[in-house]
């Protein structure tokens, strides 16, 4: 045997053992191998900051400019609005303590609180308020959030009334104008006038009237610490936002209680999250929210035929979409779409017609009856069926539908598969469901409705005015095939006969008058039927009471639970939270 193959070669063994021992020695020592669930930014109590996480974040960059898609809690944590409303309809007076109307509603007088300071110590006065409201004029046209620069503008003037008063004069009374205050953050004039180009300014150390000051920032977390001199009492010392790149790491942070507050959608949340610690882990998937509907371009034949839209709506099995497609989180929407968001505004006389157009009983017998009724409706409108059962429109062509959906949105994919089945079997429509790979492919189709998709609505006001305005107002219609991103009139639909009603609504502050107008507009909605509401777009919100209590929930809906980088309706949470006893 050759000498070099002799088994008594020791050097290789020695080197191998040396490598293993060396790598163990170099490992940082752990005093104990087990780690306790510790939130970052810890002190002796172990969880000093309220910890908020999302999912699918990009590594953070230090952008807090409220007009440039800022990091979360720039709105609300650092910058605040004058006043805002929350989904339950309640209005909070925030930096403005009082709001009165004069001159038949053409003048709005705001009284500002007198003890408000920015987090750099300087006082907040009407000069800052006027500057911020007129941001479209004082800073950059793209910053206009109150309609100052629209042509024609309904705003005659915005001026200071002493050091702590602001007066806004409108050309015509508009009861929906005050909804804009949700979206205007108060900026410190002494800081923003010094910026040469605020549109390109990252605003890395934001100065605002809010409770927090940025004390720590790196690309995987930032900490906002409560400052002295905030205008109302705060009970938490800091708020921490952690970077979570995906659902897996986010879920683990939620499960070991290091995350207190999330706006993540958790599938099967009761089993996956709440059951792990039922005393502390909670969720509130609020349904006080607008509808998600099947949209189609109402200017295209045959979708322009109302009977077709009604028939489609009648055969969709909303009960199964709710329980199977949406995991029981997004209840069926009625034919008006706004039943869950504005329950007190629904005309009781329309309930029966509403239920007939959007039935929710999923039993086979009920669905069969709906199909019969839908077919009768179609026959009356001139539709026929050919030998193989395909639906033929009055012009003699087969009715096709090509819904598009993002393949990763599994709940919508499941819901659309149910809908596809309903339409194919019930009405004989030739439906071809297309799964798009990503947002970039799907969004141009969705926002122009070149093909049909499920989409949400923009009904975000304290009254259902916006819901009607979105689809009725001729000003919101763009040409077929162009994007409807800003007005949200996905169906490219308008009802000019509704315009006088909408204008009447805007001109009055009387709840009674508005309610009567709402009833008329609802009747129009059922007779026009511009789109097909399918389910309510639930709000995702989970919270842990292990370290902090005071969260809103079903019984105490004092605010929206889901924070947003550009919304105000969750802001009251910050001052309600307190350490758990």
């Amino acid at each position, binding site marked *: 045997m050759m000498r070099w193959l002799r088994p008594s070669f020791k050097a290789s063994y020695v080197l191998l053992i040396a490598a293993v021992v060396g790598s163990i020695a170099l490992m940082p020592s752990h005093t104990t191998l087990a780690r306790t669930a510790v939130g970052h930014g810890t002190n002796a109590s172990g969880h000093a900051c309220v910890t908020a996480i999302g999912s699918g974040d*990009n590594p953070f960059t230090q952008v807090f400019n409220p007009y440039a*898609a800022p990091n979360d809690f720039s709105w609300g944590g650092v910058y605040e609005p004058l006043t805002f409303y929350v989904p339950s309809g309640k209005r909070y007076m925030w930096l403005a303590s009082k709001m009165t109307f004069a001159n038949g509603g053409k003048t709005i007088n705001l009284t500002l609180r007198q003890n408000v300071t920015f987090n750099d110590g300087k006082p907040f006065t009407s000069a800052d308020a006027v500057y911020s409201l007129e941001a479209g004029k004082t800073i950059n046209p793209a910053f206009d959030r109150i309609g100052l620069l629209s042509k024609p503008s309904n705003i005659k003037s915005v001026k200071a009334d002493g050091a702590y008063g602001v007066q806004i004069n409108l050309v015509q009374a508009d009861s929906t104008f005050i909804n804009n205050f949700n979206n205007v953050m108060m900026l410190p004039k002494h800081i923003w006038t010094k910026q040469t180009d605020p549109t390109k300014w990252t605003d890395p150390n934001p100065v605002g009237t809010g409770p927090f000051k940025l004390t720590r920032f790196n690309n995987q977390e930032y900490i906002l610490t409560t400052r002295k001199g905030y205008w109302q009492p705060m009970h938490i010392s800091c708020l921490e936002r952690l970077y979570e790149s995906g659902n897996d*790491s986010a879920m683990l942070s939620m499960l070991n209680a290091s995350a207190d507050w999330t706006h993540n959608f958790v599938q099967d949340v009761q089993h996956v999250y709440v059951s792990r610690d039922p005393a502390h882990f909670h969720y509130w998937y609020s349904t006080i929210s607008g509808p998600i509907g099947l949209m189609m371009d109402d200017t295209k034949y045959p979708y322009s035929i109302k009977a077709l839209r009604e028939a489609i709506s009648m055969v969709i099995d909303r009960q199964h979409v709710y329980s199977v497609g949406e995991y029981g989180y997004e209840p069926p929407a009625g034919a008006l779409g706004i039943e869950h968001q504005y329950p007190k505004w629904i005309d009781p006389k329309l309930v029966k017609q509403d239920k007939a157009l959007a039935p929710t009983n999923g039993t086979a017998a009920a669905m069969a009856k709906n199909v019969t009724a839908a077919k009768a409706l179609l026959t009356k409108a001139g539709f026929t069926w050919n030998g193989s059962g395909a639906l033929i429109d009055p012009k003699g062509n087969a009715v096709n539908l090509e819904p598009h959906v993002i393949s990763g949105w599994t709940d919508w994919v499941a819901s659309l598969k149910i809908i596809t089945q309903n339409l194919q079997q019930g009405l004989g429509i030739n439906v071809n469901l297309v799964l798009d790979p990503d947002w970039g492919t799907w969004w141009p189709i969705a926002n122009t409705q070149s093909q049909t998709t499920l989409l949400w609505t923009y009904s975000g006001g304290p009254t259902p005015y916006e819901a009607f305005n979105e689809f009725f107002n001729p000003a919101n219609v763009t040409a077929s095939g162009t994007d409807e*991103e800003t007005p949200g009139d996905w169906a490219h639909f308008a009802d000019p006969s509704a315009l006088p009603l909408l204008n009447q609504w805007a001109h009055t502050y009387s709840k009674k008058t508005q309610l009567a107008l709402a009833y008329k507009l609802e009747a129009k909605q059922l007779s026009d039927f511009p789109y097909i509401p399918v389910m309510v777009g639930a709000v995702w919100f989970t919270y842990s009471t292990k370290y902090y209590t005071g969260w809103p929930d079903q019984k105490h809906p004092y605010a929206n639970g889901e924070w947003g980088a550009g919304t105000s309706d969750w802001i009251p949470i910050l001052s309600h939270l307190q350490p758990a006893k």
Partner: protein
Amino acid sequence: MLFIVRRIGFYLVALWSAVTLNFLLPRLMPGKPIDSFYSKYRFEIQQNPHFLDSLKIELGIPNTPIWQQYITYLGNMLHGNFGISYSYYPTPVIDVIRTTLPWTLLLAGSATILAFTIGTFLGIVVAWRRGGIFDSILPPVTIFFSAFPAFFLALLLLYTLAFSLGWFPLEHSYSGETDIGLNWAFIKDAIDHALLPVIVIVLTGIGGWLLGMRNVMINTLAEDFISMAHAKGLSDFRVMMMYAARNAILPNLTGFAIALGYTVGGLTLVETVFSYPGVGFTLVNASLGSDYPLVQALLLLIVVAVLLANLVVDLIYVRLDPRARTQ
């Protein structure tokens, strides 16, 4: 000398063509830069339809012709002006790269170096003791692990070792308690957090290096000069390291240099599982979000790193292997 000049010239041409493709490819993808913001903020937009108005204007597609954009792009590249990122607007691209790239280099760089070193050394041992116990166990075991997708192994180890047993940190590149800097507390913290991701990548990477080294070694061991070395009376260790391994390592070294160049591109899936703020995840999101300035800068970085690595290997090869010097 002429050889080196020719090589550099070749690499410059490769660089230019990569840079041009770099310009064209992101623009061929569907979607506008503002679209990714609509996706991310669609809940805000429902309440505040004007939330993205100023971004819509800033991110609008320029209306200069495409060849003019190309010339501007080349000029900017030469000056190192990478512009403002779209998906992190208005953060400059340099800042985005500056905060994420070091973490990727730490993670991917150390993992690649470790995997290469350990894999190659094990390959040497296994080839030398061909047919022995190591040779029967190590290649199959390491190949078994390298068959796992890295993210799958990452999820498995994350859940069992980090979450259930608590032996490793759950996520991130360092805990919030230390400050970035050359202090021991931070360095220890960063190493602590990099351990599990590095273990995952090394486990899935060793197999390739080991097998490659082993196979070339076995061929090298059959050469005449090995018999000559033994005949001269040199020790086994000296023959194994100085003669056999030194020749057998050359192909692996080339692969290593290229792998090192690619570390700049990040390890997207592993970074996602561990919420490790590196450049891989950033690059993927930038590509999906039509963030042209960021994608261009990162692709340029990858191209330069790979080409540089290739150039260095070419030059080292010439140094190590005299046969390459002859024309």
